[in-house]
């Protein structure tokens, strides 16, 4: 077993893990943060995207021990319970950017990463290129793209980054 200490959604966490534990397993099974999903388990689909030190990564292809000493943010960390949603979450709700919802946590974490890197004014082409690593099997992407464009704009006016 290996002892790891990291920040998860702003809270310091210390745990003993088997080194072969994937970050997504650690988040879901140890931390009970089941918003992060396992889709393909082969780093293709993006359902498992979380932020490590502010950057979108696929938590199914990251070991929990590699996150030791780092800061992890999951979909649960975007807005406090009962508080208004993060503007990107709100944009997905408003623009119907989901159907079954399985890919949505990863889509939203990727979307926020896109805004951090590319700014608040995103054209459709940029969004589609940047969604290379996130698969949705329901929507046909149209409303996801619309949601991200709107969410990006809304983030400019929000305190929640």
């Amino acid at each position, binding site marked *: 077993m*290996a002892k790891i200490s990291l920040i998860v959604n702003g809270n310091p966490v210390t745990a003993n893990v*088997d*080194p*072969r534990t*994937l970050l997504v397993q650690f988040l879901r099974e140890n931390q009970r943060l089941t918003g992060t999903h396992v889709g393909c*388990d*082969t*780093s*293709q689909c*993006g359902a498992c*995207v979380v932020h*490590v030190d502010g*950057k*979108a*990564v*696929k938590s199914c*292809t*990251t*070991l929990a*021990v*590699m996150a*030791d*000493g780092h800061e992890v943010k999951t979909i649960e960390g975007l807005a406090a319970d009962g508080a208004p949603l993060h503007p990107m979450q709100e944009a997905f709700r408003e623009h119907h950017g989901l159907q079954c919802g399985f890919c949505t946590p990863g889509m939203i974490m*990727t979307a926020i*990463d*896109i805004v951090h*890197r590319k700014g608040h004014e995103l054209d459709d082409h940029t969004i589609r290129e*940047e969604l*290379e*690593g*996130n698969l949705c099997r329901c929507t046909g992407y149209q409303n996801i793209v619309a949601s991200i464009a709107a969410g990006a704009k809304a983030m400019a006016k929000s305190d929640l980054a």
Partner: protein
Amino acid sequence: MYEFKYHRPGTVRQAANLLVKNEDAKLIAGGHTLIPVMKQRLASPPHLVDLSHIEGLDAIEMKGRSLVIGATARHAEVASSAIVGEAIPALANLAGGIGDPAVRHKGTIGGSLANNDPTADYPAAVLALGATIVTNKRRLKAEEYFQGLFSTALEADEIITKVMFPLPKKAAYIKFRNQASRYALVGVFVARRPSDVRVAVTGAGSEGVFRVTAFEEALKKRFAAKALDGIEVPAEGLNSDIHGSAEYRAHLIGVLTRRAVEAANAKE
């Protein structure tokens, strides 16, 4: 995934000592090749040595007339680096086309080169630009470094520390991607160097990255797509699989090389 012991050395020397002490130990940095392979139980190293916390190993800098990229520089860092964009824009462009944004936040140049996947992008750049692979023990020229499928000149306790790229006069990389895996079905890196022209191909060869000398000679005489008229790439020795036949890949090499030459010329 089978059990292993995880090590996090602070220096390259410590990492090398761990490799010497633990037989069959594997290095890990971004993990985007090794972790999937371990999940499939195609590899089961008893020890993992994590290089990603060694300070300074990801540095990107100019040294004289060479662009020097540290082994743990991530694809996203190479893609967005102003230094790389200024020195060899084709290399920044290549790094920005690997996998997807989340993969680029983890994958490293050293990992890509150490693995030498026959469909990886970086080997084409390293071979075409005539880069030097610097390890904790020695310097290896690109020509001697790549030794076939997933094989390199690296010894068991040898660690890539950086890659030195001499600056070309012009260069471009064009990739025809497999839509599902995002790896190169065929990728061609063309570099017009001060003394010669090199054309390196990834994704197509059954022995990994290789050079197309017939194209190189023609392009040395005249660096234009027209110079390649009438020169065919033989399908012999190329991969045939469900994604494309050897003949199709041979055809793509010609098409992509012409596009790469045009792209390189357009960048003036």
